[in-house]
């Protein structure tokens, strides 16, 4: 069982996004929990998704599946945090 509360996980993931994707000058706190990560919102792209998937796997030991499933997981910080929390709880 992982004791990290979801809110802390979201904060960590925002920090990870800013660091790994080199969003210089962006305050992680200004990333909204439910804003889309790709397309509109942060305007990240497929290369960012790969980098983020690798960093999440490295930091949390949670694998991000490929394809359609990944789209749902990367929908927002909330969705990603939820996936990480669930995957760790069932690990």
């Amino acid at each position: 069982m992982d004791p990290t509360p979801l809110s802390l996980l979201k904060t960590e993931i925002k920090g990870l996004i800013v660091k790994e994707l080199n969003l210089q000058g962006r305050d992680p706190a200004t990333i909204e929990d439910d804003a889309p990560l790709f397309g509109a919102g942060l305007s990240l792209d497929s290369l960012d998704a790969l980098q983020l998937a690798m960093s999440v796997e490295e930091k949390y030991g949670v694998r991000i599946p490929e394809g359609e499933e990944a789209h749902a997981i990367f929908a927002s910080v909330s969705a990603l945090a939820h996936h990480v929390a669930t995957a760790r709880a069932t690990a």
Partner: protein
Amino acid sequence: MEDVRIWMTGAGLVTALGRNTRETWERLVGGERGFGPVDLFEVTGQRATIAASVRGIDLPDHSGGWSRTSVFAREAAEEALVEAGVSPKSARVGLVVGGTTGGMFETEARLAKLHAEPYTREGKKALSEMLTHPLTSTGDRLFECLGPFVCVRTICSACSSGANALVIGALWLLSGKVDAVLAGGSDGLCRLTFSGFNALAAMDPDPCRPFDRRRRGLSLGEGAGFVVLERASDARTRGRTPIAELAGWALAAEAHHITNPEPAGKVAAGVVRDALLRARISPAEVDYVNAHGTGTPLNDAMESAALRLALGEESHRIPVSSSKGQIGHTLGAAGAVEAILTALAVARGVLPPTIGLEEPDAACDLVHVMSAARPSHVRAALSNSFGFGGMDTVLVISQPDHGPPLEPSARKVVVTGASTLTPAGFLGARGSAALLAGPSRAARARPLDIEIESSLEAARARRLDRPARLGAMVAVRALDGDDTSQPNRAVAARPRVGAVFGTAFGSVDASAAFMHRLFDRGPRFASPAEFPNLVPSSPVGHVSIYLGLRGATLATADLATSGESAIVQAVELVAAGEADAIVAGSIEGASDIAERILVGLFARSSAEVDTPRAEGAAALVLEAQGHAEAREAHVLARIGEIHEWREGAELPLRSIRLSVNPSMARVILPRDHDGMGALLDDSPWRAVARLSLASSAGQHEGLGGIALAAGAGLLGEGDVQQVLIVGLAIGRGYALTLDAP
């Protein structure tokens, strides 16, 4: 100038299907595939575990400097020379080599060790074994065993490198610089590219399926392709029959994304159109397209869209195939290898198949040559090559004498902007001229004490690594000019403005860090975002994307004369009409590994050890004179004479004309060389004041670019009227004159 036809009179291939052209072609049209389990290195845990490897290659004993890449190149180059009956020993032959990885396979394990434990005994041993296999090593090995060549160019534009090598060779023939060219590309498999494409999720676990609706990515291959090109008039005189004619070409940049193609294929379609225009051949005469066809979802859809856009109704008639389902994606070699396959299709009247394609994707609506080769008369054919960073090249290959000949052009080239980044600061043309005034106290600062991070737009620059940032900064400043009230940058938005930057070693330290993660953490943790920054053309690709430059874009490498090679390359492209303007120069990032290797190499010449290797960059805007005049650009200098030479050739200083009073001229030496004084004393330049740069700009391989920017700045100030820049490195040299506007 006389109209010219360019004939391919010799070809050599090394691929997974065969160690020569005949064997590769027969097995290709026989539908065989060259894939097998990778046994060169560990691939456990990777998405794909197969590749199209070249079998039975032995590195020469005591293989000082011989990599697999260089061995492939030698075999293919020898075959091409023998078929053409051309000997570099008795003719003026030039050599152009395209590639991406050089000797990476031979050095990558040591790089990982160097990153992890640089100062241990093991680390030091790795360093002493390295002596590096820089990208230039293939050209150097070919020079030693097949040369001498009168000039040698090493280029990288990622997966279009091999095609661009043929384009540059053709330009040399059009301008009369050489009488024959040996041009091609070579790339060996290595862990870095394999795990990099794996990290990008770009590899199909099964042999790749170009244009198929179930395609899941590319399959890597390796090999080399070299051709001999010569003017048809010369080949006729020698009584040679050509394989085919190189009837036209075009190159451009998408300025879109470092790994993904521009999805609508508009830029690629423009390159297809421009190549046909250059050849003065219409789509109605095109009977075959050898596609880039990597098998990635994005490339094949984009390429199909581009072909439909460019060829219109004719795209419903013209058969298309991709050879990558048989020989894999040979990266820096692919453009040359596939140009040869295209030429053989023309010569033999057989269209090779697309093995792996069974169910064509609706998004790839083309006339595919599917599972079997078929006979067909081919009047003219296209060979497409698209590289990382959006560097697109299309070659038109036809029956000999099919279309009209090429019209050479020799446009005058001027310098309309310059900028440098050195320990003395981030300077425009005027400030750069002051670098020649004497030593700077800051010359030893490393890394540069300059606000690198904040001088570019943060959001757009987030993918740029340090070398790319250095390059983007000088490119912006050179385009803007010194008078910031009238920024010049609008010219960047014009379609035929490109970028050419030289770099000696590429991203050695970043490659070492990437390899260390691969060895230490495993392939799942190889960084997808880092990988595209490791190809030598990455900085220039980032510069093109950051500034929106869509003209001819590529990187050159030539050891300590990398800046000179890039600027000469850019002048050739502009003079030939391939671009209206090119931002060209040099970029050298700080590198602990490069510095330690160089110190090891030069440990006996004490002066160089005392000076730490600086980082720096320079850019000049090189523009066709007519283009500059039409937009009323401020001209700093005119490009005068250009000379380049290789080991064994006499330095041409005595023949370089001094056209002004010696007091109104300067000689600029990017670095000090023993004996240079005596050579200048024996030339028309004996009474001209000599200025040295190294004491104010630090020491690195890009000093030639800084010297040329400083020289242009000096002429722009109006204090002098002519400048000679002489850059020398081991076995090579360049001399350029700049004249007052």
